[in-house]
């Protein structure tokens, strides 16, 4: 049954992706990406990655649609049509795509117990994290403690991006105030 669901959902996603790339009206495209995020959230749920699905729904379907609409209200609703055909861009996209597909060939099957991800440190986290960290949720203790420096780096990157956005938008707001 889940195979049928996977096929149906992934074909919905392909149809949507093609439609979004062909749309000229950016407002419609922003709406379609909202549907796309809902679909990918369902696929994540089917793959048992419930926490990723949670994030995808909150960020992809919720916040990023609103952010895209905010961008549209500051810029324009219609796409600028580029007339000249860009063969170099197509070539880069094709090479990147085939490299990504080539990369997936080496990946272990879904749910394979011999996959490296199940062999490396996962056992130790499952057995020891409770007594070492005192937190019942293993994901939280990995994120906040075992990989604490990594998380700190990520937060720094997001903080810097936020400062950049505020500086850019603040410039526009100041101009409006002067007028």
């Amino acid at each position, binding site marked *: 049954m889940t195979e049928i*669901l996977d096929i149906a959902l992934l074909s919905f996603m392909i149809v949507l992706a093609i439609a979004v790339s062909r749309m000229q009206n950016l407002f419609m495209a922003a709406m379609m990406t909202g*549907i796309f995020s809902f679909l990918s959230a369902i696929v994540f*749920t089917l793959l048992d990655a419930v926490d990723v699905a949670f994030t995808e729904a909150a960020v992809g379907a919720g916040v990023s649609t609103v952010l895209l609409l905010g961008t549209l209200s500051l810029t324009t609703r219609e796409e600028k049509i580029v007339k000249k055909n860009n063969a170099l861009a197509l070539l880069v996209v094709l090479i990147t795509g085939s490299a990504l597909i080539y990369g997936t060939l080496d990946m272990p099957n879904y749910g394979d117990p011999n996959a490296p991800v199940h062999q490396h440190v996962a056992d130790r986290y499952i057995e020891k994290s409770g007594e070492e960290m005192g937190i019942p949720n293993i994901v939280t203790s990995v994120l906040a403690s075992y990989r604490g420096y990594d998380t700190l780096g990520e937060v720094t990157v997001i903080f810097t991006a936020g400062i950049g956005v505020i500086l850019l938008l603040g410039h526009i707001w100041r101009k409006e105030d002067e007028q």
Partner: protein
Amino acid sequence: MFIAAMIGILVTMALALCRALLGPTVYDRILSVNMFGTKTVLFIAVLGFLTDRPDFLDLALIYVLINFIGTLAVLKFVTYNDLGADPEEQNRT
């Protein structure tokens, strides 16, 4: 029975998708996005029972809230063309 429900939800999703792609007006598309969000909630709820893991229902509840707020933001954008607009101020002028 859950399989029949699942097939029904998939068909409804396909119909909502058709409406979102065909349009023709903005409101058709907004409604179809909102409906697609509702179908996502139903899908996750049914999936939980289909795979004997009804704890997915929490996830479905969060999606309802996100979908509601997202639709409000979109409608506000369509009406005022600005997310930070104050509706009362617009009415006064």
